[in-house]
């Protein structure tokens, strides 16, 4: 049923028409998996409220949304690259680390304001992504490299980025120069000012990217390339430019995610790798290639991670991400918003 609709839409893409009736749109978004997920989250929330009271559940949920926004911001770039270029980039986590250190150098070593440092970090991380595309991914794609080749290259790239940073900066844990003690009161809940800023920024940026991709020609071109690079090229799409923009978004979002995570925690060489599996979980839960899927899944994952601290000791909370990842892969590998694809 849904498959037919997407096929029709995919066929109409090159002509640039997106006039599907409202009914179809509603059916496309409010799919069964989304309903099931909502029901599961609501049920878990109610059970936790029954056990621990509204206050605790709302407080941990709020913390989770902030963490989840950062995960979503990390996931949006990975999901675009994965979906459009079919590249499983294990170095993506280390892009976050790179962003965090770039901001650290700008903010602490050069004493620039944190906003300027964050913008610089975004620009530099985007350039890092583009450099890898120019030097590695582009030429390898042109040679028709296999998936294993590209995956192992991305692991190599991850090692090179992380340990080059560690070589120069050492493995000490560092802090950005921001006031992390300030707390904001919201409807009786307390959240750190940096966590609030990080959460809001993350949601706004990911939602912005999602809207941009849904309603602009650029987004359509990306989806066309995602379906078939060769076909997109024959329809006259400047694929090189679209790929360039994809890495620009992916790198800048990853750099910003690294800075935001560093704002709420600290700066260390393993920062990005520790977030990589939660990010992969968000990518797969949200459906590979879906920016909004990454947003929803990232927030869900963040909330689940923090809610888990009500039930189990908090040192286990990161394992929740792994559990969700494995369960999603088994139950619904195409994710909440993804479409069933031939394997």
């Amino acid at each position, binding site marked *: 049923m849904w498959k037919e609709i997407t096929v029709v839409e995919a066929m109409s893409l090159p002509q640039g028409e997106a006039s599907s009736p409202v009914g179809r749109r509603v059916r496309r978004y409010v799919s069964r998996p989304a309903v099931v997920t909502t029901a599961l989250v609501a049920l878990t929330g109610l059970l936790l409220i029954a056990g621990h009271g509204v206050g605790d559940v709302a407080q941990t949920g709020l913390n989770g949304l902030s963490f989840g926004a950062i995960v979503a911001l990390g996931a949006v770039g990975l999901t675009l690259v994965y979906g459009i270029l079919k590249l499983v980039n294990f170095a993506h986590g280390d892009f976050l680390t790179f962003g965090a250190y770039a901001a650290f150098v700008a903010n602490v070593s050069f004493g620039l304001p944190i906003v300027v440092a964050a913008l610089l970090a975004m620009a530099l991380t985007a350039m890092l992504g583009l450099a890898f595309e120019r030097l590695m991914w582009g030429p390898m794609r042109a040679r028709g490299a296999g998936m294993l080749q590209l995956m192992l290259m991305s692991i*190599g790239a991850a090692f090179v980025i992380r340990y080059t940073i560690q070589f120069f900066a050492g493995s000490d844990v560092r802090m950005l120069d921001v006031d992390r003690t300030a707390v904001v009161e919201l409807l009786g809940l307390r959240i750190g000012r940096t966590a609030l800023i990080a959460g809001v920024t993350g949601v706004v940026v990911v939602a912005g990217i999602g809207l941009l991709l849904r309603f602009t020609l650029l987004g359509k071109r990306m989806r066309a390339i995602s379906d078939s690079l060769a076909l997109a090229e024959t329809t006259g799409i400047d694929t090189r430019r679209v790929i360039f923009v994809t890495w620009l978004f992916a790198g800048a979002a990853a750099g910003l995610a690294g800075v935001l995570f560093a704002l709420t925690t600290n700066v260390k060489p393993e920062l990005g790798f520790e977030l990589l599996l939660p990010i992969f979980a968000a990518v797969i839960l949200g459906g590979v290639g879906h920016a909004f899927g990454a947003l929803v899944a990232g927030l869900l994952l963040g909330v689940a991670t923090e809610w888990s601290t009500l039930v189990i000791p908090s040192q286990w909370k990161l394992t929740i991400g792994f559990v969700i990842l494995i369960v999603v892969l088994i139950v619904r590998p195409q994710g909440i918003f993804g479409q069933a694809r031939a394997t």
Partner: protein
Amino acid sequence: MSALLSPFAISLGGITEVGFWTGVGVLAGIYTLLALGLQINVGYTGILNFGQAGFMAIGAYAMAILVIDVGLPFLLAVAGAIAIAVAFALVIGMSSLRLRADYFSIATLAAAEAIRMVAQNASGLTGGNQGLYGFDAAWADMSQTIEDWLGGIGIGDAGGLLPLLIVVWGVALLAIVLLRHVQRSPWGRVLRAIREDEDAARALGKNALSFRLQSLAIAATLGALAGVFLALNLSFVNPQAFEPQAGFIGFAVLILGGLATYGGVAFGALIMWTLLEATRFVDLPLEDGQIASLRFILVGLLLIGLMAFRPQGVFGKREEMVLGD
């Protein structure tokens, strides 16, 4: 010119020492076992197992726990550790082997990280970050027996690692011989058929999932053995020894030697660990942490370079590099 070059001088004094080479040999043997498991998975069955470090961790921890807490004799504990690793492989495999190759690799990486988190946080069982000690008394006796025997035939002063070196490579070479034999059997040909064309293999009535599970179970066995030897080499186990990096060094070893060749794995492991351990002798004004970083940069560059310019490795055949096309 000489002033420019002098910081990069390498003092080769240490490289001629026996202790250096036994150390390299033991690590190379351990990684041969680890990467033989990757070879049967990646090279011969076409499944991307990124969780080999997890099986290694299970092998080491299960052996240590069975000796310390349960009081099993050493060899029985090793057998138990292998059984646990295989059981775990079957659980992971049955749930995730139906997935696409890229999803399977992510799932196995997540499983290995979950194992490491358990090792780190279930401190009642695993000692947490302090790790576990005192499981190698039986091995120390065995090692002494071998050393005495070696002394009897005139090889006396080669250092305490020689018995471990002999046992590790004995097991590794036995594994290579067995695997090569198995690979030529009808069973081995089915594995390759599944790698090349799963549908065709299924059309011949072969249960692809079952064969893949068996392949993963063999990898788990080899990974667990590698973990046991790593634990004996370190004489303690702690979570840091089983970070995913270990599995990826295993991949570098695998690719260096070449896909679909078991002998190549041993070659790759020897080259890899000679390179990695030789970084110690690079006479740069660097701190220990920086040299450790340098090693991983080297592994990363090696992976990138091999994949870009010689994906079939030294001994592999180009036509075996079929994954993901």
